[in-house]
């Protein structure tokens, strides 16, 4: 227990330098570049003294270094600060948008793995057959398809030509999401309320974005699964279990796949960045009210604290996922101790 606690502590400490570096980078670049929140906020009529007064209120007239120290001090208290454009805590829009992004990436991940792993297993079992070549071709093509184009094509086919799925947003226009919104995870919220009609609607809205994100990343996992499965299928314990009369399905899925999953899980941690990046583009294509859109909107407005807050939350998200990956790794592999 103590060791696990120490491990957690170590991991958290390790993310601090990463946050620090990213934050500094963004902080400096934001302020060096032209444009500032006061200009974005005020219309053309504001006289110069009002602009100066606003800047003073926001602390923008101080030297950058001083602003930076102030901000770090604030962060040290776990405070992301206030938006410079809207009168609101930075944590407020983030709390509203983060669940949408998590929901999207999670379902995207499920699709990625749901396509990538079975196809990879299949290719490895049918090695050097037409099926194998077909699957590998799919993997390579899909890897080079831009996420947003994938989204557009799916929208065109399944949203416009065959209007089966909605192509934007998280819920239908007639559904008032604030009726069930508790955690921000709509699938969970509607389930908790037992509101299955709305749940159906929420799931329908998830289909195209999740597949867009999922399909484009599945190529990597097809290739990875195939390569690892080929290695594992050649291993002695697979032969040994076959010799003990273990049925092929069980050999493949219980022994081989479980072993092949170890490098896949590691890869998952690394690919998660790609997933988040893909999520931004998917959010844009499908008007998904997630963190990516928040970032874009607020960068345009030069809302420094919110942009910094979003970057921090993204970085934390990545770290948390890599922590989860490590834990999953330890659960799968008895040789690894946290």
């Amino acid at each position, binding site marked *: 227990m103590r060791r696990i606690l120490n491990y957690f502590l170590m991991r958290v400490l390790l993310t601090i330098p990463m946050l620090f570096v990213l934050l500094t980078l963004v902080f400096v670049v934001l302020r060096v*570049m*032209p*444009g*500032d*929140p006061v*200009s*974005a*906020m*005020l*219309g*053309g*009529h*504001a*006289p110069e003294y*009002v602009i100066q*007064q606003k800047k003073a209120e926001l602390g923008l007239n101080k030297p950058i270094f001083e602003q930076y120290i102030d901000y770090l001090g604030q962060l040290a208290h776990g405070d992301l600060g206030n*938006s410079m454009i*809207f*009168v*609101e805590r930075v944590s*407020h*829009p983030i709390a*509203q948008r983060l669940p949408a992004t998590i929901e999207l990436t999670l379902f995207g991940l499920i699709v990625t793995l749901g396509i990538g792993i079975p196809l990879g297993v299949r290719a490895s079992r049918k090695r050097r057959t037409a099926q194998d070549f077909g699957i590998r071709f799919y993997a390579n093509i899909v890897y080079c398809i831009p996420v947003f184009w994938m989204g557009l094509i799916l929208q065109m086919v399944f*949203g*416009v030509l065959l*209007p089966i799925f*909605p*192509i*934007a*947003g998280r819920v*239908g*226009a*007639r559904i*008032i*999401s*604030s009726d069930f*919104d508790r955690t921000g995870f709509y699938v969970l919220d509607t389930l908790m309320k037992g509101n299955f009609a709305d749940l159906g609607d929420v799931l329908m809205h998830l289909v195209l974005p999740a597949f867009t994100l999922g399909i484009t990343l599945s190529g990597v996992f097809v290739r990875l699964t195939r390569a690892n499965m080929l290695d594992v299928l050649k291993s002695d314990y697979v032969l040994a279990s076959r010799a003990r009369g273990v049925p092929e399905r069980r050999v493949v899925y219980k022994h081989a796949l479980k072993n092949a999953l170890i490098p896949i899980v590691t890869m998952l941690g690394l690919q998660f960045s790609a997933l988040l990046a893909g999520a931004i583009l998917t959010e844009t294509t499908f*008007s998904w*009210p997630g963190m990516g*859109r928040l970032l874009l909107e607020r*960068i*345009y*407005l*030069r809302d420094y604290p919110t942009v910094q807050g979003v970057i921090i939350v993204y970085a934390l998200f990545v770290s948390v996922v890599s922590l989860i990956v490590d834990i999953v790794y330890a659960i799968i592999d008895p040789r690894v101790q946290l």
Partner: protein
Amino acid sequence: MKRRFSLLALAFALLCAGTAWAQSTLVYGTTDKVTVMDPASAYDQHTWDIFQNIDKGLLGYEPGTDKVVPALAERYTVNKEGTEYTFYLRHGLKFTDGTPFTADTVKWSIDRVMRLKGDPSWLVTQFVKEVQVVDPYTVKFILMGPTPFFPTLVAGNPPYFPLSPNVYPADHFITNPSELKGGALVGLGPYKCTSFKRDEEVVLDANPDYYGPPPHIKRIIIRYFDDATTMRLALERGEIDLAYKTLNPSDISDLQKNPKLNTFKIASPFIRFLCFECSQSVFQNKELRQAIGALINRPEITQKVYLGQAIPLYSMVPIGMAGHTDNFKAALGDGNVKLAEKILSKLGYTRESPFAFDLWYTPTHYGDTEVNLGDVLKQEIERCPLVKVTVKSAEWATYKQQFNNKQMPAYLLGWYPDYIDPDDYTAAFAQTAASAGEGIFFSNKKWDDLFTQEQQSLVPSERAKIFKEVQAMWPGESLTVPIFQGNLFIFTRKNVEGVKIGPPLIFNYDQLRFVK
């Protein structure tokens, strides 16, 4: 037999009830966004629209017209100098939080706007010197000077709207209703806001305490769309009942042909124009401004970029407004390469060393079509071989800073009026102080005098004469070059009626109703 009949009747009744329920909610889609939920700070069409529906001004507009009518005030009087307006308030009204509506709340709200100095506060501070409470139901506005259009200011601008002092904080703006005391927006309008979720949805329910006739539709859900394409599809599929602002030109063309929809086309006072920085840049020279202005081909722009859904504009004063005259057409023409060539060669520019400048646009602030506008303008201007344009773009925050800092020699702007008066289309760009605010930095003593004269005059014919004169001089100075005037489109399902939007562009939701 009888039993069966009653069952059928019951089923029918249930069906009707179901329909009735469905018909009591209207879903309104828009690509606009709510900025800040504070009348002292909000300065955009859509947020103002919401305030027009959840709150009221002392005066209002008759729906669908620009006729000023009484609202929270039953009547008003003006002193003969035109500098003091006295409003007599309706009795017995209360805000949705229960606070009674009195002259004190009016004074409190106006004082708050003046004190907080929000973006739209100039609409008050530039005209109002002081607000006095005469008695609980009488309030007097003392103005800086005679302001002939003061009633339109009071009617159309939410900064003049009364707020509940028990809900809004006196010392700062609020962004989300959740920050209000009680956590909800309150007002005196036909609707009250029951749910607010930024960029996703706003739910408005009929306000039982409203003094006027209750709205036909009990609940309005405003649904926010990130892009027009999605909104268009939602409308076609019947997911929304009404779509207002802003659809893409191609979507408008398609929707107009859709037999399941009603189209409402409104001549909008929204204008687009090219601005020049007149004090430091190369465009100090008004001949260069004229040359570029002459090259703009308005019909081509409205056809190519807006598929014929915008109207070429040849004056800064929009078509349909009193005193509008088309001066640019005669003076500079459309795509007048000859004139431009003549001016430029006179100034010594040749094919080998053409006149080169940067033309700026901002890619999202005025909608997605802006890139195309940039593309088309570049091509039109470069039809004159003596010019070379580099098109540049910057997001609004940067854009604004850059024009304030005189960093952009030529740039595109758009204009929604702050008040319906030619003054807001002319003085706002040409009068020395206002001009600097838009980055034009134009200054002309003669023009300034004309504007001052117009602003203080109470005689409409005298004002009209001045505006005509200014418009006639405009192409010669070409500090800005009008390009086109927008049309606004509202599309509704066939069963929605009552869309009434007049020149002040106020959309009264309580006029909407469902028909069979």
